[in-house]
């Protein structure tokens, strides 16, 4: 979709469904803002329950948008998540695609 063209509803189907979920979008935004974060921090930052967060982190990891590692931080084992270059690109593409749709709806 390019700027200035009339809205074609068919293009909405092209939106990335992995990111389009509000829960996963929250996680992606949090992880884009930091270099890496553990499970506890992401829980606070997104307001999600541990179970919901866990399921959605797994989904994002399977898609290759985030990387999950078990690391020792100050000798304490932590589950650390970080966004991958593919995840950054996907979020950028999603924003570029959604922006014009919202602009046309505002007109």
């Amino acid at each position, binding site marked *: 979709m390019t700027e200035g063209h009339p809205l074609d509803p068919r293009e909405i189907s092209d939106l990335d469904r992995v990111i389009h979920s509000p829960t996963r979008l929250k996680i992606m935004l949090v992880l884009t803002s*930091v270099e890496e974060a*553990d499970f506890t921090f992401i829980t606070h930052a997104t307001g999600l329950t*541990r179970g919901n967060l866990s399921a959605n982190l797994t989904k994002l990891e399977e898609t290759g948008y985030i990387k999950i590692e078990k690391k020792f931080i100050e000798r304490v084992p932590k589950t650390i998540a970080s966004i991958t270059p593919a995840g950054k690109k996907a979020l950028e593409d999603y924003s570029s695609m959604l922006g014009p749709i919202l602009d046309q709806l505002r007109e």
Partner: protein
Amino acid sequence: MNDQITEQTKELRKQYARTFHNDGLLDFFVGWAIVSAGIYLLTSSMIFSFAGWMPILLIAPIKKYFVIPRFGYVKFSQSASIPRPILIGAGAVILIGSLLITIIGGGESRVPIIVALLGLALLFVLDKGFNRTTVYAIFIPLFFIVGLGLNVLTPALIMLTGGVLMALGVYLFVKFLQKFPLEPDKEDGLS
């Protein structure tokens, strides 16, 4: 990353950093350093010339045992931090330098304290670059340089200022512990 996302992520990063550092530890230890400077000026006891800065070394372990388990671990940006060995080295040079100057000067001069305060405050700013350290980095040197320069700063006033900051630190720390209670360790379900 497009401009809108970049702006949003910058704002989020600032918000997270503010919350993470809003535990009152910096306020408490800066307050203690100022109280110690006041006691030193009152008693000329060299112990208080340095005792004020030593507890700052406790910030890292307190963060590790009280703050991170509650708030979670987060790394904001690698490029924003000075490599740890350089930071520790610079801090040591400042402390040892001010100690030597004080010993050479027979413990009479107030300059080493001001230099140490200024140097350590600037190191904090360079390392963290967040708002409260910037305020302290400007406030502390001005407080001493202007106050002592104009002869309006008495040891009692210095100790009172430090005491207020320490009280603020305790208040923020308690609020932080209430806002982020320690949750029982559960499995996160991720392999």
